[in-house]
């Protein structure tokens, strides 16, 4: 008798289509080992449903609004609102400033695989802990992240995020 072990998780998740579902149902009628397996599979499936995170009721809207429609994001709108060329130039300037100061900023890929689009994931700027701890910066004498960002004219990226 060929067991249906591999299909049981999908079976209890209700994801098997007609023919495969039929095969499993028929098999379970005559195989107690697979019935036990199915029992375990169902338990896992139910347990998974109970481990969702506890979410706060706070909406992200005010922050998102500030970065899209908000009047409080003047500098960012200027940044995002400028054309691709100007944005690229600004990014290049910022990168150059960073490199001059001896920092290696990791290349960040955006959702479309864009290379270094500061707008796509500005949060890389927030990783101040690893930056300031990093030995790349040469230890205690290294400038703080705030100074560096101010130097690169991107301080609002941090404050606004």
């Amino acid at each position: 008798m060929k067991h249906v072990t591999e299909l049981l998780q999908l079976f209890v998740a209700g994801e098997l289509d007609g023919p495969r579902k039929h095969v499993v149902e028929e098999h379970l009628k005559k195989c107690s080992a697979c019935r036990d397996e199915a029992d375990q599979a169902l338990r896992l499936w139910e347990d998974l449903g109970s481990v969702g995170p506890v979410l706060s009721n706070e909406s992200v809207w005010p922050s998102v609004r500030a970065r899209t429609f908000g009047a409080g994001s003047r500098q960012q709108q200027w940044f995002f609102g400028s054309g691709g060329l100007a944005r690229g130039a600004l990014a290049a300037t910022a990168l150059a400033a960073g490199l001059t100061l001896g920092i290696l900023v990791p290349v960040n890929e955006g959702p479309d695989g864009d290379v270094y689009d500061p707008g796509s994931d500005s949060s890389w700027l927030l990783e101040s802990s690893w930056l300031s701890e990093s030995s790349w910066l040469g230890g205690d004498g290294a400038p703080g992240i705030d100074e560096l960002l101010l130097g690169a004219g991107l301080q609002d990226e941090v404050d606004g995020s």
Partner: protein
Amino acid sequence: MSQAMDDDALMTRTAAGDEEAFRLLVQRWERDVLSFLIHMLGSVEEAEDLLQETFVQVFRKADAYRATGKFKSWLFRIAGNLARSRLRRRKILRWVPFNPVDHDIGSSQPGPDADLESSQRKDAVRASMDRLPQRQKEALVLNRFQGMSYQEAAEAMGTTVPGVESLIQRALAALRADLAGKGDLL
């Protein structure tokens, strides 16, 4: 504006600069996206950060969105890409060990009346999920927690339905094997 207005209509309005439409979209989907990101990243703080980023991306890409009734897959594709990007960078920079103190989802403290065994089991399941390979976890979370069909999950992940099925199958098998080593917790 009608609460029942569908996502495509809201996206069309958002692309035209309608703030109210965008607000409705954000508030309709933020909890689902946050839950997904927490599962992916294991950190509430990072998830909240990327949640904001996800919707900023939605806004900025609204022009490019095609109204074909697949907003949910499109939205989770953006969130998934951001999460993967973050995980990749985390891996490059340094290994960030799982720390239950920082992770609301991994630190359920049993209350006075809590069923300790059940709480332990949940923690074990969470910890096992955390150990899953990224793609397997993503497929499982989209399907089990976001209620996506395999088709929707495949679109969100840029793969095929059999691909998603295989990922979920392997994820569940790995969870079973992992949890089997934890005695009678499961």
